[in-house]
């Protein structure tokens, strides 16, 4: 199965049922995964930072999203084909140190920002694999909607 990789600060949405969307190893960054089971459309957004530092406009290839601009852009990408009630949403990533001053706990900042935006907009989170001392990547199969986590030792976990 062909794998298409999302870079950090970007998102990919696809209805090509022959591919899997995969992330790079996430570290503290957060992958927001959306799957529409009815339309068989899936997408992954990966954010390294909670808020964008520059005005994000157009389709400049250097544009990197924070969650504040990335999440709305991701949802917009599903429109007009998808209905909100068909979304399955997963959160993956946000690894953290054993202890850390809040500035360096980017994972916690990202997770709190994402859940805040999602619950405010009445979205439910179907599953998550987040936090702890784990560096992982995520995979989304467009055909089946299956989400998998891959650890750096090659181990795969079905979410």
């Amino acid at each position, binding site marked *: 199965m062909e794998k298409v990789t999302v870079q*950090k*600060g970007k998102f990919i949405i696809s209805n090509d049922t022959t591919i899997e969307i995969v992330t*790079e190893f996430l570290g*503290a*960054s957060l992958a927001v995964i959306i799957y529409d089971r009815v339309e068989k459309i899936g997408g992954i957004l990966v954010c390294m930072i909670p808020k964008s*530092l520059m005005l994000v406009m157009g389709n400049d290839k250097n544009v*990197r999203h924070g969650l504040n601009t990335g999440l709305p852009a991701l949802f917009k990408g599903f429109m007009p084909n998808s209905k909100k009630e068909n979304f399955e949403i997963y959160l993956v990533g946000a*690894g953290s140190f054993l202890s850390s001053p809040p500035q360096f706990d980017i994972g916690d900042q990202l997770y709190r920002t994402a859940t805040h935006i999602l619950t405010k907009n009445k979205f439910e989170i179907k599953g998550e694999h987040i936090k702890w001392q784990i560096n992982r990547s995520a995979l989304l199969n467009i055909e089946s909607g299956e989400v998998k986590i891959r650890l750096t030792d090659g181990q795969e976990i079905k979410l």
Partner: protein
Amino acid sequence: MKGDTVVIDTSLEHIFEHINQLPVFPKVVFKALKLLDDPDANLKELADLIRYDQGLNANFLRLANSARFGLSRQVTRLDMALALLGIDQIKEVLLVSAAKPYLDKPLQGYGMSGFELWTHSLAITVVSEVVSRKMGIQDSTTLFTACLMHDIGKVAMNVQIGLKNSEILQLVHQENVSFNEAEWKVVGGDHAVVGSEILRQWEFPFEIVRAVRNHHDPDLYIQDELSLWLSSCNTMTTLMGLSYGLDTFMYKIHPDLPKKLGLTYDFLFDVLQDSVIEFEKTRDMLYL
């Protein structure tokens, strides 16, 4: 030895005794760096120096062609590469070329396969460059060098840690100690202290030796600026997902670190964002 069982000495003394089995870091690099600090630096003299070391020469040409250095065309000759690169870039290619043979190997003992240590080591140098540029750090080469070499101790400790890693991890989980504290408890030292000893023997500058010694110990790295920056760059590399192996994230960050260096949320976001973008230009280097 009993029957067929091979007993491997995991003591720290044993590791220290065998440090000198690693080939010595090429002295010509220090000579070349010194030459480059001379305002009348002569590129011909520099080329002769580098050419003298065949492995270094070959790596230099390969790595200089990475997208990271933004050369407008492929270079196949050393004099051409030197003419097209800036002084700081020459220093970086030199250091990376010399470090590559130590770092581009898998370290099973630490759970790092393929090029994972090499990826981590290159990634942290990218973060160091971004930090140096944004902070206006004058001597960016010192931080770059400390970052590049900071995990060299893992190379020397790989076998010993491989035999003890489940014990170390158990300690981390049960007693909530960091990986380096557990390394100390189980084998009597960590890759930071072994790495600094290697760099001391290779005659790296004292402040780099000290920063590498300190890089996981919050009580130590809080005391001087280079150690603080090294530790911060290492931390950010982990946040970016570019640290691999058993010890990833298994460390404690000093609560005063951001205050000591004046690191704000926005500064960290900015460095992380730029480092992610810059690292993508460096990816080709992994396979050069």
